[in-house]
């Protein structure tokens, strides 16, 4: 297991290096003049040249990349052109906000999806199964931004019982906890719809297996059949999907963060990309890749825990 972990961590290091080079090259190919973007359309050419020089953008791409890698190895992620602060600070702040939102979402989505998915799948074609399946399909098929606008229209504009944006500031008169309700609701409904369908399908398949029939015919209470025999087997396949949600929750909440003006990692990455803030994009991409790879390693250990037959 130690050898496996070491190999995976080495793989991760190589991947991070390749990703950083690719992101840098893609940025170079994007036809955006960083200084022009920062200064605006009506800035003079003199202003643009001065800023390019100040930011060192008049030097070759190769020398900038080599310098960047050297700095990262020394623990210096550089300074963000957009936020005019050290990248590490911006990243800590925005990633912290997103991890908070992602953590709450994950804590809600998993039990919500498991309960509904298992409940639907344990009695295939029952009324409850049909109702839950319809609900799950509906949630998964509405885009996040539309779902966001719907909940804003109902709970903010019509009922006025929840805040419409989540700037994580109480100056608007709304407590912090209330600013998480709608973003978490949107992510839970959108993501939960997909997970419920996955868990239900897996549960239905397990419930058709001979060992379940044997357990039932032996007179075991239905509750025990589900909890002791079906549940663990039914969760092996959805486990991958559940773990993949971690990646989505950390780096894929762009739409929700934009709709609710939430100062998170996804919105930061979008704005960094639009402004060609290379230091921030690089650091953000490395973060996202690290999360993905660590999730994969965690997933492998999870499989082993769920199914003792699996060994790495």
């Amino acid at each position, binding site marked *: 297991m130690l050898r496996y972990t070491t190999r995976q961590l080495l793989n991760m290091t190589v991947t991070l290096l390749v990703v950083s080079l690719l992101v840098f090259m893609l940025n170079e190919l994007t*036809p*955006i*003049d960083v200084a*022009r*973007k*920062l*200064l*605006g*359309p*009506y*800035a*003079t050419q*003199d*202003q643009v040249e*001065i*800023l390019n020089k100040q930011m060192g953008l008049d030097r070759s791409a190769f020398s900038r990349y080599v310098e960047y890698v050297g700095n990262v190895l020394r623990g210096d992620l550089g300074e963000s052109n*957009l*936020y*005019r*602060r050290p990248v590490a600070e911006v990243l800590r702040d925005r990633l912290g906000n997103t991890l908070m939102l992602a953590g709450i979402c994950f804590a809600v989505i998993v039990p919500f999806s498991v309960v509904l998915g298992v409940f639907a799948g344990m009695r295939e074609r029952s009324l409850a199964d049909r109702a839950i399946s319809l609900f799950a399909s509906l949630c998964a098929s509405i885009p996040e*931004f539309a779902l*966001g*606008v719907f909940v*804003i229209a109902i709970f*903010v*504009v019509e009922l*006025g019982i*929840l*805040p*419409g*944006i989540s*700037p994580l*500031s109480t*100056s*608007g*008169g*709304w407590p912090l906890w209330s600013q998480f309700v709608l973003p978490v609701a949107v992510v839970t409904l959108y993501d939960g719809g997909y997970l419920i369908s996955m868990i239900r399908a897996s549960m239905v398949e397990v419930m058709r297996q001979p060992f379940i029939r044997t357990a039932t015919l032996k007179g075991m209470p239905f509750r025990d059949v589900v909890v002791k025999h079906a549940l663990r087997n039914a969760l092996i396949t959805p486990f991958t999907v559940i773990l993949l949600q971690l990646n989505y929750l950390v780096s894929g909440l762009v739409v929700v963060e*934009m*709709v*609710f*003006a939430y*100062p998170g990692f996804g*919105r*930061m990455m979008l*704005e960094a990309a*639009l*402004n*060609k803030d290379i230091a921030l994009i690089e650091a953000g991409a490395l973060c996202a890749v690290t999360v993905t790879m660590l999730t994969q390693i965690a997933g492998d250990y999870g499989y082993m825990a769920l199914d003792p037959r699996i060994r790495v």
Partner: protein
Amino acid sequence: MADKLHPIIKLAGRDFADGKLDRREFLRIATLLGIATPVAFGMAGLPMPAMAQGAPKKGGIVRLGSRVQDLKSPHTYSWVESANAARQTLDYLTYTGIDNVTRPNLVAKWEPSPDLKTWTLTLRRDVTWRKDNRKLTADDVVWNIKRVLDPKTGSSVVGLLKGFILDEYETGEKDDKGVAKKSTRLWDANAVQKVDDFTIRLNGKAANLGIPEALFHYPLMIMDPAENGEFKVGSNGTGAFDMVELDVGKRARFAARKSGHWGGGAHIDTFEIIDLGDDAAAQVAALASKQVDMIYQGAVTTYDTVQKMPNVQINSIDTAYTAVARVHSLKPFDDKRVRQALRHATDPDAVLKLAYRGLGKPGEHHHVSSVHPEYANVGYMKQDIAKAKALLAEAGYPNGIDTEIIARPQPDWELLAVQAMVEQWKEAGIRARINVMPSAQYWNVWTKVPFGFTTWAHRPLGTMVHSLAYRTGGAWNESNWSNAEFDKLITEAEGYLDVEKRRAVMAKLERIMLDEGPIVVPLWRSVFNYSDKKIKGYKIHPTIYIEAKDMWVDA
């Protein structure tokens, strides 16, 4: 007020009495030439504009939804959003109001010489810096003016005052293509002169009537020289607020100065700017849940929704903001008949309704709006598809033409306007493909693309925009338009104080534009924003400048 009447005021007064000068233009000229605003309003027979909506109440907070940008270098700002934050702490020497009238601000008065080449600025004596209570002096102002005029600073004020006070010279260096590099410097060592502790004189090389207006150009904020041009939390200022928090991309917070502000201070205790990002839905949501009290600028897509919100009012003003579809003189647009066909194929009324909900005025295919004082009505060009087809056939394109227009996706109305025009052009046989290019990319190539749709900001005079955008060799001449007669007429128009004379020249310029010009102007848009009805003392400025010190909360 000036001790002696400037000779041009007497001239303007005579023209005003003869009905040759309208009240608005008379007011502008009289105030620019140093007449105190109340006196100028009196001379024009107008009441002073009322701002107050009941007695202002003290205290409270106003929260503005707007981008929160890096504010480090006020003298090089290129975005109004940045200026709207820093202007709460830093002041301008003058102030141009929503009525287009420029008033004294940090200066108590200004006096131009009869030839308009020398401007003497007298500072108020009651202005103090917040941190050390030191008086604002001529040394502070001279330092700021010299700094913005120094090409090393990189301020856009250089472009504005170049003709008045700077000389261009060759640096002796050459660029990558071997072309000699040029820079600017003060035309005379004494060009920015300290007369005494409270008096500054600008000794220009050419006449310029617009100096007080130029002193309100948004990067020209007066900073404490001790801070060396850097603005940050706690920075010194003469304004009504102290910036106490700045988190770029999230929020900025300003606390009202407790005492010593020359204008009596702010009514509110706190002004906060909250970054809502670029999503229009977030604007509506923030207003609905009262997490912000104002939105910097409204979007067409949210207008109808906000109209139905009982707690919100929509503030709007007619402006000379527009966007023009302009072509380079390249095939097939090298033939003026093809350019005319583009204009005849366009229905500005329909574009205004489709793209901007009718909020503004239809364009007339020349760059002078009816809000400009020298606007001449030379006849509104209505859509005429038959004529457009005939012109194309005459030019040798009986089967029409195929082309590509580059447009930006944001703001949303621009792409809608292009889509509407492209559909209209199809009827005349002009088949245009739309190439949607992100803004950041477009602004790299906006003067280089053969056919593009470019936004143009409001400017108070038609001559200003002609000089910037259509004079041969002009830095912002994006269409590469060059017409010797047109250039001559622009210079002639700029030389007339008499608005009627300027209007007569402007009519000639407009006709040349309609006959040969490189542009299609579909609309003049109103700008609008949203504010909670409890916010009083606020009126929208054509350039959407926001002064928090004038606002109060009627809770």
